[in-house]
């Protein structure tokens, strides 16, 4: 009991101490330039910030997993840092990561090295997710930093897949689990100075407008929220728009357009005759 109180008061006392707190706040926050595309980085105010949670929402097929892959590949290849990726939908496809790496560098060794820096956890329900996050918080992340690499990013794809079946109806545990997951993510982000990126699904509200899933309570958890959408009525079906729906740094409702094909340019140029036939017959 007393130990717990001192645990709680410790950080508060630190914050109140003027010397220590000022340095702490100023020194340790920095951002990770994600090199996604110039547009997306602009939207995120130059990148992902450590110590914060950023959320990507969008309809199926809007590119959330692709953006996560791109961020993982950029950070592991260009910034040479370890990335932790928690995959709940078996959407992680190492072949795709390799394709993206191949457009960045033709050197096989570099590609393999970058792939080794991405660590994947596969969990399929909320209790395993909590077990994984608690394990990371207690010894997983320290082990990773001790080993030489530094961990600066944690991705969870997707949070809504495991939580949405627990909410609503007569279940009384849903909110508690939701808040526990939120608490774990926030503690990991703050204590270890890590940028957390997660994906969420969308639902339609009464008027037919898209809104992020998991309800109002979850909307307070991420600091920044980006909505990805397809661009209708275009010839190339790989265009997407990103809209900033919640941010503490920039004006909301900034929209940027980007192209998913940008991350696999080589593949596009090596289209065989067959693929061209398919493109012509696209609706």
């Amino acid at each position, binding site marked *: *009991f007393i130990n717990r109180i001192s645990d709680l008061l410790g950080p508060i006392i630190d914050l109140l101490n003027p010397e220590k707190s000022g340095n702490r706040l100023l020194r340790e926050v920095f951002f990770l330039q994600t090199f996604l595309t110039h547009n997306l980085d602009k939207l995120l105010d130059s990148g992902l910030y450590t110590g914060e949670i950023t959320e990507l929402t969008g*309809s*199926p*097929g809007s590119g959330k*997993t692709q953006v996560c892959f791109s961020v993982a590949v950029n950070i592991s290849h260009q910034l040479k840092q370890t990335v932790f990726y928690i995959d*709940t*939908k*078996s*959407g992680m*496809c*190492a*072949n*795709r*990561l*390799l394709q993206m790496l191949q457009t960045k560098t033709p050197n096989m060794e570099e590609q393999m090295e970058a*792939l*080794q*820096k*991405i*660590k*994947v956890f*596969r*969990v*399929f*329900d909320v209790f*395993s997710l*909590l*077990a*994984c996050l*608690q*394990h990371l918080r*207690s*010894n*997983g992340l320290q082990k990773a930093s001790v080993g030489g690499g530094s961990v600066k990013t944690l991705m969870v794809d997707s949070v*809504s*897949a495991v939580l*949405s*079946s*627990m*909410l*609503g*109806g007569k279940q009384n*545990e849903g909110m508690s689990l939701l808040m*526990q997951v939120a608490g774990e993510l926030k503690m990991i982000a703050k204590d270890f100075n890590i940028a957390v990126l997660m994906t969420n*699904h*969308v*639902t*339609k509200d009464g008027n037919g407008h898209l809104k992020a*899933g998991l309800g109002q309570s979850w909307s307070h958890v991420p600091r920044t929220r980006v909505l990805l959408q397809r661009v209708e009525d275009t010839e190339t079906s*790989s265009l997407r728009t990103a809209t900033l729906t919640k941010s503490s740094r920039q004006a909301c409702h900034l929209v940027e357009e980007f192209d998913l*094909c940008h991350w*696999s340019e080589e593949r596009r140029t090596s289209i065989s*005759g*067959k*693929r061209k*036939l*398919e493109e012509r*017959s*696209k*609706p």
Partner: protein
Amino acid sequence: MHTPHSRSVGGGNAPFWLVCQTAIKHQKKKKKKKKRKSTVNSKMHRTVPSLPLAPSMKVKLINAGFQVASDLTDMRPLQLCKEAGISQEEAVEVLQVLRDDGQPHQQRAATESLTALDLLHQEQALGSIVTFCSALDDALGGGVPVGKTTEICGSPGVGKTQLCMQLAVDVQIPVCFGGLGGKALYIDTEGSFLVQRVADMAEAAVQHCTLLAEDTEQRQALEELTVEKILSNLFLVRCHDYVELLAEVYLLPDFLSEHPEVRLVVIDSIAFPFRHDFEDLSQRTRLLNGLAQQLIQLATQHSLAVVLTNQMTTRVSNGQSKLVPALGESWGHAATQRLILHWEGLRRLASLYKSPSQMEATIQYQITVQGFRDAPDEPRTTPDSSAVSSPSGNHSKRPRMEDLS
């Protein structure tokens, strides 16, 4: 002032200092017990609220002072029973859950990670199931991937069940021919499974392999590949409503442990039992999401491909109507890959709508007597397309093929 130490201090009119005192004494007792546990266990950090127990149980445990899972590990059921005020059976259950949670494979899943490089090697080893339509195989990156869930949506009559039956036959093609050599489980909820049709497809597949056989290994495998063997490796389950379907999926892990050669599970269709007689739509969404996660877990842990069939519904917006996949917006996020089959005039087209690794593509296919095949005017033709009666010409004038969907 003497007061008896009782566990139910929280409720009632006990003064605050008394509550604190009792709680402190309680914690001291707990600490004495904790000293016995000196081995570092990775379970030590798991908090009690995050354990997979019933909420009422967790409330009782937390009120009794247990905060972390390691507080509970070295308790006997009788002790736990007295401390937490739960019945003996419940105490045994709680300790059982903790022990299961600490099982090697559970812990490994949650706490150990694979690097992307390991995953790459794994994916290359897993392979995919061909569909005998080379355009579709190219679009899917080799075929229906193993280890992921694929959803096939389409209007009635476009060929979803045909594709499912074709996959159930194709998964059994021997490894030396480039197939997986595995068995298939077909869960039929609509009653549209026709054995005679599968027998025709199996015969066509065997003929196709016979044409391809080159070396002795392949010829040996071909001797064993008969229509009877293909039909006997196909397990069929008929579910009449959603409760049966949920029960079947719940029992699948046991079935799959008994039959480890199963490489394909087809649910045709998953929309049918959930679209009839369901008043509470939010409950339907929850059930479907839970079902999808269970299927993804099975696909990953047992290395199989899961194929789901979905129906289409009409969405009216801005005075226009559009055909969209049924079961709602959040179901769209459930499957890993989504394939939409649709008509364009007399042509059948398949569009890859959502995939983590493949680009979007639309290809044409057709249904012949042999099964699911390439459309005749594609430059790459398989030997069976010689059975196509009319030559390719004008698309809109191509006669419709006989099919039994």
